[in-house]
């Protein structure tokens, strides 16, 4: 960073004023705002879902209403569902280049 040229290129302001540049800059800012809102939303929601499932399983365990292997398979089933949701997030169509 120290070695980065101190001066802006001569035609910087001309290019910065370009409609095209302004547009990609605002698209970029919106993209990040959107991305982080969505990402935190996912992380929080997922944590809440997991907490509920664990509460339920703990409750069932204390009540001894379900056999242990059933509890485990319910937990595994829940994790598989979450895994599918996560994979879909990776595959959802992303904003392409906007170029």
């Amino acid at each position, binding site marked *: *960073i120290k*070695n*980065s*040229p*101190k*001066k*802006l*290129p001569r035609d*910087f302001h001309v*290019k*910065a004023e*370009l409609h*095209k*540049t302004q547009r*990609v*800059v605002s*698209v*970029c*800012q919106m*993209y*990040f*705002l959107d*991305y*982080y*809102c969505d*990402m*935190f*939303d996912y*992380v*929080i929601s*997922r*944590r809440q879902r*997991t*907490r509920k499932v*664990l*509460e339920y*399983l*703990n409750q069932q*365990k204390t009540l001894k209403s379900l056999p242990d292997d059933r*509890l*485990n398979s*319910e*937990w*595994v089933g*829940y*994790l598989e569902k*979450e*895994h*599918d949701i*996560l*994979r879909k*997030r*990776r*595959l959802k169509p*992303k*904003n392409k*280049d*906007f*170029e």
Partner: protein
Amino acid sequence: RENGVVTDFNYTPSHQKPFLQPTAGTTVSSHQDLKQIVEMTLGSEGVLNQAVKLPRGEDENEWMAVHCVDFYNQINMLYGTITEFCSPQSCPRMIATNEYEYLWSFQKGQAPVAVSAPKYVECLMRWCQDQFDDESVFPAKMSGQFPPKFIERYVVQMLRRLFRVYAHIYCHHFNEVLELNLQTVLNTSFRHFCLFSQEFELLRPADFGPLVELVMELRDR
């Protein structure tokens, strides 16, 4: 943990890590101030530190894969804003400071060659895209499996290369980024990238080459 005893219903070792460890700073606990959190510098106080943790019970490979795609998209966006300023004329070589130059190998077995920064980024992005499209590396089907050693063989390599775009932007276009008022976005993205790499020990300090100092600074913030 919440109610005293928490039974872990999953017994695989990689799943034993708790999802969220308490951090000193801000805790993301509800949706309410979400927007506010996002808007004030994301970088501050442990919000991102929590978000990179492997969710309880999740497959580590899938978590890596999602992040590879996310960082790829982020870097695409960031670099897209400076394409006007990063040309074969302004940046005839893919460098980060004068000490680091990154070469591209066009064919397996052939010696890597020096290319301009925009050319390098273009090749890199296409290479990433090819990997994402390869069902045997990044499975898209719900039943698809990741290849063995997915993290060592694919994730680490991809992150190592994606990092170089951050390095080039920081070292040679930071003034432009400042003028365009994108420094917060760049710092957030890079910090997220570093925290993720650290959490899973994906990159070595040497991989951070020209930005080692910045990485330290972001970590301590």
